[in-house]
């Protein structure tokens, strides 16, 4: 059996490119109006719940301030990002990856199991026996797949005025257009947080073995 299915590997790297380009072009878009509000409307500093710092050019796509070019990139990469997410969800449900590896069991929520998992992580002990993922991994992936990634798509739809007639209910779900825009930022930075954690843990747990697994799909001796 392969460590990672072909669908997982294809999606993983496609998604990485999409997330990086969308995040960096998103920083340029943020620079255009670096304030976040709750509710339907907001335009002035006094209404903002967060004054976002200005992101320097080396972090942004493009590498100079152009809202138009940043929007070009953002709008382009939204397609592969959203379609790939739809693809991996269908693949995960069809090939059992979701039910087998990501969905948590009731017993895993037992406090002693969670405590055991946290302690193992703190000792940097990544040997989790026969199962593919431990509880914290499953929970993290479930949040990423179930909330953060689709959350980016749905908050993106909510801030698009052209989608308002049919998707006004999604806007309501987030509590208004400016709230949806705030969640768009919160989810994006949560994904950045996940990316940092993910790369750090891969570095600690054996980067070459894990990278090989995600590229070739080959099974390594320790699962």
């Amino acid at each position, binding site marked *: 059996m392969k460590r990672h299915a072909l669908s997982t590997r294809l999606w993983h790297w496609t998604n990485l490119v999409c997330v*990086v*380009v969308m995040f*960096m072009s998103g920083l340029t*878009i*943020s620079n*255009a*109006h670096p*304030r976040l*509000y709750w509710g*339907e*409307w*907001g*335009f*002035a500093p006094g209404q903002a719940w967060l004054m976002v710092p200005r992101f320097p*050019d*080396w*972090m*942004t*796509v*493009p*590498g100079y301030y*152009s*809202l*138009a*070019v940043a*929007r*070009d*990139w953002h*709008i*382009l990469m*939204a*397609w592969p990002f959203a379609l790939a997410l739809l693809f991996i969800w269908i693949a995960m449900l069809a090939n059992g990856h979701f039910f087998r590896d990501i969905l948590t069991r009731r017993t895993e929520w037992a406090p002693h199991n969670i405590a055991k998992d946290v302690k193992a992580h703190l000792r940097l002990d990544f040997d989790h026996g026969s199962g593919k993922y431990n509880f914290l991994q499953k929970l993290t992936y479930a949040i990423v797949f179930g909330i953060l990634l689709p959350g980016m798509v749905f908050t993106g739809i909510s*801030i*698009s*005025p*052209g*989608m*308002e*007639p*049919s*998707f*006004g209910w999604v*806007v309501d779900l987030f509590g208004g*257009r*400016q709230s949806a*825009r705030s969640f768009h930022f919160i989810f994006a930075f949560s994904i950045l947080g996940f990316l940092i954690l993910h790369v750090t843990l891969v570095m600690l747990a054996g980067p070459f073995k894990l990278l090989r697994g995600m590229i070739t799909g080959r099974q390594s001796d320790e699962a």
Partner: protein
Amino acid sequence: MRRRNFLVAAGAAFVAGCNRVADSKPAARLLDAAESWHKSAQRFLNPPDALVREYSRADISPFFRGNGTTEPGGAYPAMQSNGFADWRLEVRGLVDNPLSLTLENIRRLPQRTQITRHDCVEGWSAIGEWAGPQLSILLEAAGLQDDARFIVFRCFDNLSGSDYYESVDLVDAFHPQTIVAHMLNGEPLPVRNGAPLRMRIERQLGYKHAKYLTGIEAVSSLDDIGAGGGGYWEDRSGYQWYAGI
């Protein structure tokens, strides 16, 4: 420190790569294509006459911010002090009966009042109550010719040496909430919001809502207007012509 340098270098290299890709011809075509896919998808998912949300008076924001030109120059101040009595809105181009309308003519047409949310391309939103005739009434009165494909909005204001203009296709031109507004929150339009007339194109971003409106022109192609981009910001900065996203 070394890790930060690496990050900066990696970021810069990535950005340089993106810039190079974006400047190439096929990429420019791809970026344009992505914009038109969004337009097609939005049009598919939202029926032509589907309305955006209309709010209640309680939802109106305490102030309606103005962007772009907020105080036109030239002959504008004189016209303003005259209560815009000499202002004319021309409906022309590919129409059977060109019109030249005064503000009084426009006020006498059937009016639509709508409390809608304005979303700026920069990211902010404000809610206001707009009133004015539907654009479709003016276009029907002028009699659109068969080869008309786009409606161009001509404006009084000149930004950095170019006259502001915008354009939409007939789907948005005939949308029930596309109105020529002369009132905001029950008062004549404030100067910063486009007095005496401005467009409301409710399913698109703010830069499409042309202010200081002087002309409505039916055309078959946008190629020969301005730099051919279909609008001031489209020509000047490469903004997307379809601004539903």
